[in-house]
Each structure stands twice: as C-alpha cells, then as structure tokens.
C-alpha cells in the first residue's frame, strides 16, 4: 500500500510543477515576460538536445563523450535545416549513427 502513497506524492509534486504556471498565468503577461517566454522554446529544445548527444551518464556522473552520436547529430541537424522534416531527420541521424559505429568497430 505504501508504494501507492509514494506515487501520489510523486504525482503531486510533478503536477505542481506542470500546473502552477498554467493556472496562474491568466492575464496578458507584462511585455518583458512575454518577450522572455518567446525565447524559451529554442533554449529548452537546445538543452534537451546537446547534453543528450555530447555527454553520457556513468557511475561517476555525466562526462563528455566523443562518440558517433556527435557526427550523427550534426547530420541530423543538416537534414533538419534543409528539409524541416522530423521523420527524415531521425532516419538519417540513426542510419548515420549505426554506420559510423560499425566503421569505428564498436
């Protein structure tokens, strides 16, 4: 039974983070905040991409790793830049990741 109470606690703190801004921002935000929020998507997207590609998590925490993910990510970025096609980006990125890894023999 204990575990379900833990779930409810986990859900509550998660919901709080997701809900508080959505519920309190009813009116037009002041101009400085509107301008700030306009640049949140590129900043967050970048933060979700870059460490995921150039670092790996190990026992000793995160470390920078120069692996096949970096050239694969660059190829993906080029495809995305030229085509704006998400499916093609993922396909080209994954295929180049596997090819590079095969060539590097790991």
């Amino acid at each position, binding site marked *: 039974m*204990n*575990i379900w109470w833990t*779930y*409810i*606690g*986990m*859900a509550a*703190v*998660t*919901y709080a*983070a*997701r*809900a*508080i*801004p*959505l*519920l309190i*921002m*009813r*009116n037009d935000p002041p*101009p*400085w905040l*509107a*301008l*700030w*929020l*306009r*640049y*949140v*998507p*590129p*900043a*967050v*997207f*970048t*933060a*979700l*991409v*870059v460490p*995921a*590609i150039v*670092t790996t998590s190990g026992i000793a925490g*995160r*470390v*920078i790793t120069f692996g*096949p*993910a970096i050239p694969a*990510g660059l190829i*993906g970025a080029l495809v*995305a*830049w030229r085509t*704006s*096609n*998400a*499916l093609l*980006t*993922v396909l080209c*990125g*994954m295929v180049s*990741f596997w090819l590079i890894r095969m060539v590097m023999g790991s």
Partner: protein
Amino acid sequence: MQGVTQSRWKSIQSGFIATIIVWPGVAPFGMVYAVSALAAGLSFSETLGMSLIVFAGASQFTAVGLFGAGANPISIIAATAIINARHLLLAASTASYIRQSPGWLRSIVAFQLTDETYAVGVQQFEKTGGDAWFQFGSNLSLYFVWAVSTVIGSLLGALIPDPVGLGLDLIFPLTFIAFLMPMVRDRVNRSVALLAAGISIAVALWLPGSWYVLIAGLVGSAFGAWFAVQSPLTPPEEGSDANH
C-alpha cells in the same frame, strides 16, 4: 454547439496525430521502464500504476532505481520534484499560448504535459496560435503510447533488447533537433541556442538530474529577450514597449 464540439474533436485528433512523430523515441523507454520496474520488485499493477499516475519518464526511471535500493518514500518524492522542476518552465511557456482557455481545461492539460508534447504544441502554436485542445490531444497521444509500451514491456520482459545498446536513446535528441532547426533561422534565436548549448553542457556536467534544462532554458531565453531588444535587425513586435 455542434460546430464547437466538432472543432474541438478536430483539434484533439490533430494533436494526437502530430505527436506520433515522437512515439519511436518514447516507446522503447516505456518498455525498458517496465522491465526495470519489474526487476526492482514492483508488481505489474504497480509498474503500470506509476506510468498512469505519475507519467514522467525520467523520474520514473529514477524512482525505480530508488525503490530497488530500498529508499524511503520522502527521498523518492524529493528526487521526483527535483527532476520535474523543469516543467515549471515548459508550463509557463505553454501558458503563454493557451492562457485564454478555461481553467479546468488548463488543469487537465497540466497533468500530462511532457518535454515531447510541449515541443509538439509549441511547433503548432507558432504556426496557428494557441489551442488547448490540440495540446490535450497531443498529451493524450503520449499518455497512450507510454501506457501501452509499459504493458508491452511488462509482457515481453527480458526479451526486450537494451535500447541504449542499440543507440535508440539518440531518437529523442534527433527529434528535438528537427523541432529546433527551423526555429534558429534568425540571429537572436541562433544566439539563444548557442548560449543554451554551452550552459546546458556545463550544468549537466556539474549538477545531477535535469537542472541543466531549467537553468539553460531560463538563462538562454532571458538572453534572447535582452538581445531582441538590443538588436536593430529584429525589432520585437509585442516587446517593443519593453525597450526602456
């Protein structure tokens, strides 16, 4: 009324469909989550229950590790709060698009907002304007695939190969690259991305969890706002009165 119901349904549907693009990045990890939860001693209903009640991938993996290590509930809840603090920023960003929709709808949207559906929503809203029903459909889509992949993972168990070994953890950042690149066509957005890249690496190496998303997100976007006001090449439309 008929027309309203129909357009809502259309929005939910198109949100649901637009989110299928992120399924391949999510489903393998839903399955692996289930495998590791069962291995940590959780029952099937407890494994699926966490996916349905908490619905936050990274924190579910962490919780499974902590359950396996016999950690106490308070520390598990605290770890969850820290990992999911980044949602404050995503929710604030989403709120700026859908703040006009009713409170009850926003409180439902808040329950299932994730990195992935946030990105799908923003993409759509930048093109067509905010639509909370679209966001709801997108959230529902990810909730659905997360639940289904948890069940499949529980059933297949150890038959599932390690997705990290296959490199499938690269699908997530590749998907976000596809979301990001069309955004960085101007100087301000490009500078925001470059700064956020540097900060996110530095913070990821320095602090555990996902603080790097929150910190790089906050600082990168604040810099963008400042730079937009300074830059004569890209005069901000709504933000011009902030120029003092």
